[in-house]
């Protein structure tokens, strides 16, 4: 396992490098720099040029890249063009919000997918199974933003059960119990909307996995030894089928990132996905670069995590 993990991390390093170069090039192509909005018009353009020179705007690109990546490693993404504050500060609260949203979505996803997947696999080719398969097929075919809009319309506006925007009721003091309850309350609808639509892969995978395991010899043996039906399913089949699901955990992160952009924009939830869209429309490119890089890194790390879990679960992948 260690050998595999080390080799897998070695593959990740060039991936991260290429990702950072790609985003650096994107950043360089974006119009404007930290100075464009900052300087009042009375200052002589020659002076601006001087400052640019001092800041290294005209240095060779590899020097600029080294400086930028050096900052990134120290968690410094430069200044926001628009808000005149460090990008890190601007992102702080939003990273936290996005993290909670992803976590609650994951919990909902597994809470919905695991029982449905097990039922569907255990009673395959019955009415129950067809209903569950039908639901996951609809989930596969429905785009997340349409589903989220409908959820917001029904439960947010028509029924009024849930708040329609924000991450917390304004005026509450952080740290109090009310604050916590309000946060959770704001999370439920967006997280549920995303979870209901992204469960299909887990359900289908679990279903196929259980149908496969059901026909293995060790299950026959367990039955022959007189294990009860519930014991066969809960102890033998479930445990064997669940491990590969764990391995997909890392890939869920990529799905969550893609979904969070839509969810956060539709539900007005102040997270990283909303920040990205906002900063693009404000042409605040240093923030765009930072958010894109962070999302890209999260996806790379998610793939790494999946591969390592998979190597623990499935010995065939390990390198001898």
């Amino acid at each position: 396992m260690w050998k595999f993990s080390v080799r897998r991390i070695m593959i990740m390093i060039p991936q991260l490098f290429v990702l950072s170069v790609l985003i650096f090039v994107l950043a360089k192509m974006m119009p404007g720099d930290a100075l464009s909005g900052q300087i009042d018009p009375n200052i002589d353009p020659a002076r601006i040029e001087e400052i640019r020179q001092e800041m290294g705007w005209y240095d060779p690109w590899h020097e600029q890249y080294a400086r930028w990546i050096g900052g990134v490693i120290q968690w410094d993404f430069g200044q926001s063009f628009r808000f005149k504050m460090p990008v890190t500060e601007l992102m702080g609260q939003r990273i936290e919000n996005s993290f909670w949203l992803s976590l609650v979505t994951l919990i909902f996803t597994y809470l919905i997918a695991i029982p449905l997947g097990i039922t569907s696999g255990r009673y395959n080719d019955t009415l129950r199974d067809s209903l569950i398969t039908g639901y996951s097929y609809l989930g596969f075919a429905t785009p997340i933003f349409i589903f989220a809009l409908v959820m917001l319309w029904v439960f947010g506006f028509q029924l009024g059960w849930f708040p329609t925007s924000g991450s917390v009721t304004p005026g509450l003091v952080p740290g109090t119990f009310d604050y916590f309850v309000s946060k959770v309350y704001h999370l439920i609808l967006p997280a549920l909307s995303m979870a209901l639509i992204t469960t299909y892969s887990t359900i289908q995978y679990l279903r196929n996995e259980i149908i496969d395991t059901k026909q293995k010899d060790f299950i026959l043996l367990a039955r022959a030894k007189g294990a009860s039906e519930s014991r066969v399913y809960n102890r033998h089949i479930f445990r064997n089928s669940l491990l590969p699901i764990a391995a997909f955990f890392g890939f869920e992160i990529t799905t969550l990132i893609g979904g969070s952009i839509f969810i956060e924009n539709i539900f007005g939830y102040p997270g990283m996905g909303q920040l990205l869209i906002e900063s693009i429309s404000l042409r605040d490119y240093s923030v765009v670069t930072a958010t894109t890089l962070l999302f890209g890194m999260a996806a790379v790390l998610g793939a790494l995590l999946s591969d390592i879990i998979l190597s623990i679960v499935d010995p065939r992948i390990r390198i001898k």
Partner: protein
Amino acid sequence: MAANSASVENVDVKKKEIKSPSGLSVIGRELIKDKIALISLIFLILVVAFVYGISFVLDQEEIVKVDLFSIYEPPGEEFILGTDYGGRDVFGQLIIGTRNSLSIAFLVTIMTGLIGVVYGLLSGYFGGHVDNIMMRILDFFLILPFTMIVIAFVAIVPKYSIWTFSLIMTAFLWMGIARLIRSKALQEKELDYIHAAKTLGTSNLKIVFKHILPNVSSLIIVTMTLNLASNIGLESGLSFLGFGFPESTPSLGTLLSYARNPQTLEFRWWIWVPASLMILFLMLAVNNVGVALRRASDARQRRG
């Protein structure tokens, strides 16, 4: 002589009898068995014919023209599906939007198909180091968060147009089909007919495109059909966020994006509900046809 020609005919007849059913007739039988796929196909043909046919009559300029006297009209006599905030006819926008969304989905599907098939075939056929390097490149593209990267590119491209939009989408969508074709090509190249072709001295390129390509064609058709469905979703998703079509060219996504205004979402259903239903039905229908095609391409799964 006469007897001879008769026996030749006889052989011909026998040949016909043992001939395996042609691709089209297999698909036809599969569709007749699978009623949902058949209905989906008819729905698709009708939508495509209607939408492309009527846009010869309908003038896009006329529909996107702002009319301040009829802002937010609910559905009625004059406007079947009401109007939006610029007093523009929603029904007309729906038709033109469907046409634009379908066109770009077709375009992106074909371009990703071309790149993916060639990439996958070469990588799978040559194998070894070539395959290793090509797969590492593909892996890298695969982990990029699609929506994010496309949005960042769309934001910085100067002279943004439908072409640049579809090129950007293509650049980050060719990997799925490439990987499928590659694994199929890996299997295919071990078969005897390829060894025979190699022994006869056929050039590599000829083997790849004349021998392997026809044998993976059913996989290509199935994958591209399923990709078409997801491309419709991706395009409308990007347009929904405001990073797809410019507003002067309506798409299904731009109609939906009006629902980002809570007022529209809550009180003016006629603007966003028809477009959502259209996207949903189109994606479901294309998927159903794709799934039926997949069954038809695999003799073990056929129902017909």
